[in-house]
């Protein structure tokens, strides 16, 4: 690209962690600001341009209220390319963990009986509503992957991320397998790589925060855990923490009930 791409960075309902992850590129931030024409980024600047057509929109968060959906549709309309950043935008994230519970009940639990002003809908990822061109999962996104994607886009290529599970990265870092040695519930074999196996490298089982790999082998995972006396329910509650809609698509959570 010869001209600076015009970009916007947006957050729907989320913890702002992915936008913060971009702000955390301290060494590259000024280069990013130089290479892209950042028109709209509420988290980092005032006076945001809300109308100009964008080459790329980065969107974080889930659609958890009608306001989010309106914002998302407006973003999609003005952007040529939409990059979903973060596990919320890609898979629903924690907010989608208990989509099976009706929102009315959730509202009552948290806000009490009498209040009924809260605008809340079933929390679903960005790609459930609009076309997403690039998916960058991660809770939060990994800085290196973001920079790699940004450089690819600047170069005019559609970025491509490797698609294998945390296990392989975990092995490359030469960690002792937590399933094999300690019988822990580790979501590594289900979860897409990118984090360089952060958790297992700290002796902590993977919680699945990057969301599932393309081809998850549920049965083999169950067998693996069953061999170690771990029940389906235990695995499913753990799996559902970050990408519940993906698992629910597999009709797994409904099996518990």
């Amino acid at each position, binding site marked *: 690209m010869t001209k600076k791409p015009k970009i916007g960075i947006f*957050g*729907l*309902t*989320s*913890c*702002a*962690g*992915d*936008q*913060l*992850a971009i*702000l*955390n590129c*301290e*060494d590259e*931030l*000024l280069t990013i*600001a130089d290479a892209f024409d950042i028109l709209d*980024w*509420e*988290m*980092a*600047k*005032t*006076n*945001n341009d809300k109308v100009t057509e964008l080459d790329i929109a980065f969107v974080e968060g*889930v*659609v*958890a*209220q009608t306001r*989010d959906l309106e914002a998302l549709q407006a973003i999609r309309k003005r952007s040529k390319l939409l990059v979903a950043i973060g596990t919320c935008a890609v898979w629903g*994230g*924690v*907010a989608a*963990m*208990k989509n099976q*519970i009706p929102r009315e009940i*959730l509202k009552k*639990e*948290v806000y*009490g009986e009498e*209040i009924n*002003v*809260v*605008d*809340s809908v079933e*929390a679903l990822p960005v790609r459930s509503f609009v076309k997403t061109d690039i998916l960058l999962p991660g*809770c*939060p996104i990994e800085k290196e992957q973001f920079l790699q994607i940004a450089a690819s886009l600047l170069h005019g290529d559609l970025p491509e991320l490797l698609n294998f599970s945390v296990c392989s990265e975990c092995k490359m870092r030469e960690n002792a397998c937590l399933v094999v040695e300690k019988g822990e519930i580790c979501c590594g074999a289900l979860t897409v790589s990118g984090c360089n196996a*952060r*958790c297992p*490298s*700290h*002796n*902590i089982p993977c*919680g699945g*925060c990057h969301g599932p790999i393309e081809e998850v082998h549920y049965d083999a995972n169950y067998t693996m855990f069953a061999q170690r006396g771990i029940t389906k329910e235990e695995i499913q*509650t*753990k799996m559902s*923490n970050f990408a519940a809609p993906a698992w629910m698509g597999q009709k797994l959570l409904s099996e518990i009930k």
Partner: protein
Amino acid sequence: MDKDRKIVVPHLGRVEGHGGIDVEIEKGDISKVNMEIFEGSRFYEVLIIGKKYSEISSIVSRVCGICSAGHTLTSQMATENAFQIKITQRTEFLRGLLLHGEAIESHALHLGCLVLPDLLGYDGPLSMAKDYPKEVTIALNLKKLGNKIQELIGGRAIHPINAVVGGFGKCPSKTQLEQLKIELQKGLEMSDAIVDLFSKIKLPDFNFKEGIYSALLPKEERYSYLGDYIYTSDGITRPISEFRKVCHEKVVAHSTAKQSLYNNQPFMVGALARININHKYLTGKAKEALDKLFPILPSHNPLHINYAQAVELVHSIERSIQLIKFLFEIGFEHEEPVQFEVFASKGVGAIEVPRGTLYHYYEFNDKGEVVEADIITPTAQNLANVEKNMREAVKTLMQGPLNTLQSSLENIARAYDPCISCATHLVRIKFK
């Protein structure tokens, strides 16, 4: 200005989260000042019901990306409180470091990337960098330092993974800590520059009245973000288990964030509240910074939150260096998280995170699954106070030009650094 006026600022840029200040001025009088929150609800207190004790902290961490370390640790402390787990000294030091890392990152981000551009008339750090490359670089480097600590201790700068109930998955190595110490020493000089810069900037005073402040009392005779007792500036000290007496939560119609009141009064938590209550414990360079920035204490000007953060920035760096020394003293043997028994119980955890006191409360069944939870974030506690300060400011400012009024209100709201996502986004002003 006695006409009905209406201005809409749907989003206030440069605050983490979504929100607006909704101010209505009717016939020269304030009819409404509301912090309106646009953030969708995520119902954390419900999400964790049925989850095992080991999974909670990584879920609630997602309340807020900016104080994720704070949420993680508060959650773990509440769990430990419930199961009567006693953590080791090394864990205590490491947790301290992690919290200071978060404070450094958060304060540097707020001061350098949000407040300074505001005060110097830029729309953000990126545009400010063209004229003030040195200042922006210092801020970014301090922010990076904070992140480095979090990355090293927490395993990740945002949503730490290494901290677990009972300890840590992996302890940093000697060489890693040595390296960090060198960088902290450099950071100390940089933070001096920030204090210097702020001491030259005069912040307006809109005649704020004396407020109520609340903060944790340090366990020992030193400035700290940890404590077992809550002190409110009316002179009462309560154990953290009585946190509901301090922050009585109420749901307000205009916001998905709950607001907290103390004795039906708004109150303040956060850096300024801490400085007002605990400043006597400051030592070293932080004390020098305090003397430079706060000739009079306590301060009732919410804009001084920025000064307070600058003081804490220095303190956190100094204390981190000290903690590393302690860690060296106790050595580097591998230490597994503490083993414990699970039983039906309740527990509270409280930590002074950058924006104020954070409370987590859980009730567990005998399998260690959550049956009830309550999370009270600092921003929720501060919201009512922000509104109160705004009312005060509007009174003083109403006669002035409209854009001054608007930007002043935004400045006040921003001073609180309302990480809205954790409670809730920011300012919309309507003049009716």
